[in-house]
């Protein structure tokens, strides 16, 4: 069995509702987390994301001005200076399947519909910690692999085509810096 050392994880929680932030903080601290940063809107969350470099982001969807979906899209910028790979858990009152698809297409890693439960939140965190998915980059998408299962019976159009072309090792930042001197 696996145990998560929550005290080594840094969380960023974004929700405009102070009651929900309090609940999330309580749950995360009870799991053992020490570092829980809170933002009440997407813009502040993005700033805190750059500053604190959290391991996991938990965000609401519906917020004024700059919502959780936009926050996810801003984080999932492959060319950004920050970390575009951090797991994002969307915790929302939206409960329609269509919303799950929209969140998934924005690069959200896990979707958790309210009402919140300790078990639901724990399981989503366990998923992102223990079973991270590879990232996919296309012309229109950058985020965790949206295929969780292989469906051999699938008959529709394919989003991805083409054979394996090459494997590119990304140069390290140090190498990049050296080559630019």
């Amino acid at each position, binding site marked *: *069995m696996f145990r998560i*050392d929550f005290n080594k994880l*840094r969380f960023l929680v974004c929700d405009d509702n102070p009651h929900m932030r309090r609940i999330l903080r309580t*749950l995360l601290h*009870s799991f053992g987390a020490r570092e829980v940063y809170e933002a009440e809107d997407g813009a502040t969350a993005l700033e805190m994301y750059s500053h604190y470099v959290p391991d996991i982001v938990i965000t609401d969807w519906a917020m004024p001005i700059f919502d959780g979906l936009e926050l996810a899209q801003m984080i999932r910028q492959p060319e950004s200076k920050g970390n575009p790979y951090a797991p994002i858990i969307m915790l929302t009152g939206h409960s329609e399947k269509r919303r799950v698809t929209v969140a998934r297409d924005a690069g959200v890693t896990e979707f958790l519909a309210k*009402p919140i439960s300790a078990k639901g939140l724990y399981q989503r965190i366990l998923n992102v910690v223990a079973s991270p998915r590879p990232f*996919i980059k*296309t012309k229109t998408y950058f985020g965790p692999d949206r295929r969780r299962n292989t469906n051999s019976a699938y008959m529709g159009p394919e989003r991805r085509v083409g054979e394996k072309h090459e494997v590119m*090792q990304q140069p390290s*930042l140090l190498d990049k810096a050296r080559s630019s001197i």
Partner: protein
Amino acid sequence: MAKNSARDIEVTAFATHQIITQPNPLRKVLRRVEKKDMDDPIGRAEQALAGLSGEFKDWMTTEVNRLSAAHDAVRNDGFTKDRRDELFRAAHDIKGDAATFGYPTAAGVAESLCRIIEHAPDLDKVPAELFTHHINAILAIVHENTKLDSISVSAELSRRLRKVADDYLADVNRDRPEHLEVILAPSIVPAE
């Protein structure tokens, strides 16, 4: 926490996409333990949540007062984008929070209200009573009832309001298939 350097990131390129893999940057927080050594983080969190429950009534009152104020603003001055958004967010917060706070049927009524705000083609044409009945029901469930609201009356009220709202939405969206599909689709949240 650990963050992989760019050197660890492997990119496999295909004609239309790239697959980017890297060692799990959070692997260091996972520890294999014997079952007997497993503690119970979920139980601990549930206990902590129960410890907050003394505040839930006050929190719920704050939420419904916000909804009531948003409704008053619409009733007095009509819908604008800001007033519509505030009414939706207030109802949406209740939809998400009320069950946690011990008022699951208030959450059901708030969900019905959210659906009207989201799917009615013209909010100015929605009968005012439809809003008023939903908001009065939420107020009544929270202010008049106890948390034992699973008992009959409020649950029945919630069911009936949802039925009226759904019938209305199905009628006004009969020429808008994309909305109709969403309205008729089942929720991903299991029913109570």
